[in-house]
């Protein structure tokens, strides 16, 4: 979408250029991206506020039909809400496709519509399509397979939760999950915890990724407090907090630490909610903690029983737990007593049910139809509910910035209470881009889920694949060949540069500098050409596979890569000459949006935003993965934690990424690009033609998909915005039991009120630009 305005595509040639900030001046509405039930009322309002004549282009498969997101939160087609003139296919559509759509629309208006006739009070002529909106379930088939298939269950339902009655994965054998040897420090901490908390805590004897403890509910808060403030090493950061609905587990053998002594001890204290001995929890809360020195992670699991269980909040320990607990509450229905503001965060405020419960339908087509009337009825919550009014004194001006706003970089809603131009209070409303990807992860096979990861951080491309695959590979103990690792690193760094180039243009644009966008998108197109040469795709190549890559590098990749490195290295100098010492840019960014290092560490801020506070912390160095330890590069940092520092860090990161790409290209090892352990990988096609075993694995792994051994793993990678972690839980099936994404944007954005409060409204734009978030990564 953005690319069509930039030099290579130059939409202005087709007579459409100027983007309007409000629907009042626009005659064309391009809806690009997925239409969510939360944002649908907003789209409808924008359309109705447009003056006649007006036309609509629906852009992308998701917008046309819901696309690959047949999930509870997505409207299955824009034409259920507003009439659509032209549909653009593709996911994502290429820039040329949008230009084509525009010319189609122009031809349609010229040849069919005669829109001026009604203006001149003549008969005939139309303005925009006259087709009525479709009604999901009535005038359009709700079946993703087309009409006439109603009697036949959707393929795969017999093997997806909560039934699994026909899963053939049980017939497949796998080795046990990968096991690690704990470090000395972790062992001594386990000893300390054992002495201090006795039977209330029990270490899981075998783990695939990090020390894991089961803690009884009545003491988990003490344990967390101890780990945060007293333990050695301290765990100051709450990396992630989520839950698992255990009700669909196929093997519900009681977990030892929930019976016997622990249960007795709870009842002696008179606090037990669990009279049973030897039970299996209905829900498990999972806390991932992180220590900075030495770098390490730790997992706490707390079992909860009951239909609508309750536990205690930890927002008094970590203020950053606020959003995580709200998300867990709305997705699982687990109440956190003592939480200051426990209400829905991502889903609409009037949503019913808890989507990540196993009993909740995953598909939109299994739910009641979403119609135009639904879009009128389910209005976003009034802004007054988000911000505090000043007591006594004058009223503050309550203003919605977003979801439809050019400055918010996506459909996000900032609610500000303004005293003059000063932000007296600010709150965020997210979830306008919630695609239920975690729920989808529970029904797609391990391979099928890869394309969904591309779309989580849609500027990150294959770097997302890597985050996901790394967790799966850690769990199953899959060795990735060296050549595949190098290619993975190289492409991930390409996408980091891709992201930073787009960021550079938009961030500068946010504070008034328009030119850089045109320069950075020029280089980005060159980068996209390389990505296309290698993977065949632009934004969402989905090119990594379990155990390696989809295919080897093509002919001529090296020359293209070398040329790009050379060109961009010079061009960065141009960019910097424009911006880095620009007095206006400095005045708008220095001292603005300051975040202290302590806050950044405690709130889980990661990536360039954390490094701009002065901490040298990068997962690529601290928990090296995919062979990053073989590369020479530095971690850029800056001090001050303001918008300018974040700018400096990102610019330097482009240079460091170029260094990594250069090394990867020059030292590219030979050999295989996918593991030869074909139990989990899709085998090389050549091998399937030679031996029957590869052929069988090929058949199994592309149809029902491989089975991943029962277990869990959390790993994180450093994508362009920070630490993106995947927590995959397998129940020994061909799909995940729980797919949790720890998104960097979620934590980075939660901290924004700290930066923006008491500043000016204009500073908020600079802060938004410098934080560099992306909506599907926040809302998932």
């Amino acid at each position: 979408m953005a690319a069509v305005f930039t030099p290579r595509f130059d939409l202005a040639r087709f007579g459409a250029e100027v983007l309007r900030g409000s629907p009042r001046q626009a005659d064309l509405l391009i809806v690009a991206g997925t239409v969510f039930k939360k944002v649908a009322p907003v789209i409808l309002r924008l359309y109705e506020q447009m003056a006649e004549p007006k036309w609509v282009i629906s852009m992308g498969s998701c917008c046309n039909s819901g696309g690959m997101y047949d999930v509870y939160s997505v409207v299955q087609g824009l034409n259920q809400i507003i009439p659509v003139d032209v549909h653009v296919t593709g996911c994502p559509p290429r820039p040329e496709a949008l230009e084509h759509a525009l010319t189609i629309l122009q031809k349609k208006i010229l040849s069919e519509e005669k829109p001026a006739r009604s203006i001149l009070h003549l008969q005939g002529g139309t303005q925009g399509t006259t087709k009525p909106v479709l009604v999901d379930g009535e005038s359009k088939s709700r079946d993703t397979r087309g009409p006439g298939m109603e009697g036949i269950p959707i393929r795969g339902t017999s093997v997806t939760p909560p039934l699994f009655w026909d899963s053939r994965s049980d017939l497949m054998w796998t080795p046990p999950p990968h096991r690690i040897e704990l470090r000395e420090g972790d062992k001594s901490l386990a000893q300390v915890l054992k002495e201090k908390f006795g039977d209330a805590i029990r270490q899981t004897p075998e783990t695939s990724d990090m020390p894991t403890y089961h803690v009884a509910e009545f003491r988990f808060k003490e344990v967390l407090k101890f780990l945060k403030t007293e333990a050695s090493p301290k765990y100051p950061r709450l990396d992630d907090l989520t839950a698992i609905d255990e009700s669909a587990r196929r093997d519900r053998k009681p977990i030892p630490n929930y019976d016997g002594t622990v249960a007795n001890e709870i009842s002696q204290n008179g606090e037990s909610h669990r009279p049973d001995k030897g039970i299996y929890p209905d829900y498990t809360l999972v806390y991932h903690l992180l220590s900075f020195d030495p770098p390490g992670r730790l997992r706490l699991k707390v079992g909860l029983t009951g239909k609508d269980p309750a536990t205690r909040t930890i927002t008094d320990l970590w203020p950053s737990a606020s959003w995580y607990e709200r998300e867990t509450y709305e997705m699982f229905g687990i109440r956190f007593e003592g939480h200051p503001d426990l209400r829905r965060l991502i889903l609409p405020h009037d949503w019913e049910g808890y989507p990540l419960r196993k009993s909740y339908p995953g598909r939109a087509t299994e739910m009641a139809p979403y119609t135009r009337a639904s879009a009128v009825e389910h209005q976003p919550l009034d802004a007054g509910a988000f911000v505090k009014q000043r007591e006594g004194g004058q009223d503050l001006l309550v203003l919605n910035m977003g979801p439809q706003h050019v400055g918010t970089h996506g459909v996000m809603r900032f609610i500000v209470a303004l005293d003059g131009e000063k932000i007296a209070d600010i709150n965020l409303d997210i979830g306008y881009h919630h695609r239920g990807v975690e729920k989808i992860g529970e029904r797609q096979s391990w391979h099928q889920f890869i394309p969904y990861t591309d779309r989580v951080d849609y500027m990150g491309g294959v770097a997302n694949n890597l985050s996901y695959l790394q967790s799966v590979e850690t769990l199953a103990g899959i060795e990735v060949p060296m050549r595949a690792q190098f290619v993975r690193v190289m492409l991930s760094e390409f996408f980091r540069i891709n992201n930073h180039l787009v960021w550079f243009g938009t961030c500068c644009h946010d504070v008034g500098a328009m030119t850089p966008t045109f320069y950075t998108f020029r280089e980005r197109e060159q980068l996209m050409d390389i990505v296309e040469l290698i993977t065949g795709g632009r934004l969402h190549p989905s090119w990594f596979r379990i155990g390696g890559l989809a295919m080897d590098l093509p002919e001529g990749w090296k020359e293209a890569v070398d040329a790009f490195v050379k060109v961009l290295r010079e061009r960065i100098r141009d960019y910097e000459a424009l911006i880095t010492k620009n007095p206006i840019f400095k005045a708008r960014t220095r001292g603005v949006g300051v975040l202290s290092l302590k806050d950044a560490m405690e709130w889980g801020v990661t990536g360039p935003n954390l490094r701009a506070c002065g901490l040298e912390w990068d997962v690529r160095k601290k928990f090296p993965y995919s062979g990053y330890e073989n590369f020479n590069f530095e971690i850029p940092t800056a001090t001050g934690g303001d918008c300018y520092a974040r700018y400096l860090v990102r610019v330097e990161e482009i240079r460091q990424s170029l260094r990594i790409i250069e090394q990867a290209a020059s030292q590219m090892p030979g050999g295989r690009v996918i593991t030869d352990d074909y139990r989990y990988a899709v085998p090389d096609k050549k091998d399937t033609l030679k031996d029957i075993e590869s052929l069988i694995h090929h058949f199994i792994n592309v149809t029902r998909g491989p089975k991943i051994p029962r277990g869990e793993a959390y790993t994180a990678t450093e994508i362009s915005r920070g630490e993106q972690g995947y927590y995959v839980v397998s129940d020994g099936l061909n799909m995940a039991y729980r797919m949790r994404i720890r998104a960097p944007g979620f934590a980075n954005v939660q901290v924004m009120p700290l930066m923006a409060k008491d500043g000016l409204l204009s500073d908020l734009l600079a802060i938004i630009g410098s934080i560099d978030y992306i909506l599907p990564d926040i809302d998932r």
Partner: protein
Amino acid sequence: MEPMPNINVLSPWQPGVLALGIFAVMSLVLIVAFLFLASWLGEKKPNLEKLRPYECGIIPTGTARFPYPVAFYLTAAFFLIFDVEAAFIFSWAIAFDRLGWPGWLQISFFIAILMISLFYLWKKGGLEWDPTARRSPVSPETSSLPSSTG
């Protein structure tokens, strides 16, 4: 200041009733034509949403009609004062050659007073847009980047 010596600076008064009449009629005809065309050509498809203020697609909260903070008025008042005073300087500039040195001295005195009041305002913080909520102190020079070896 002295009275203006030359009346012929402005064009002389020549009453022409006919021309005025034609002008008035043409104006009226044009106004009526524009109003008619606008109302005849303009499409009217009113709905409730079009009457609502646009606020990023959300129904607005509360009213925007309440007392504005003092800072807006201060800025407006300062602008007005200096604007009016600039008008005096323009009138001097038109006739500076005829006013001679006495005029120059007088206007210099006037400008000096303006400058003093401007600096006074500046010092008092009257030009600070939002003196109460100044940004946090400017961060130290953020230059601890590793030298770009790449």
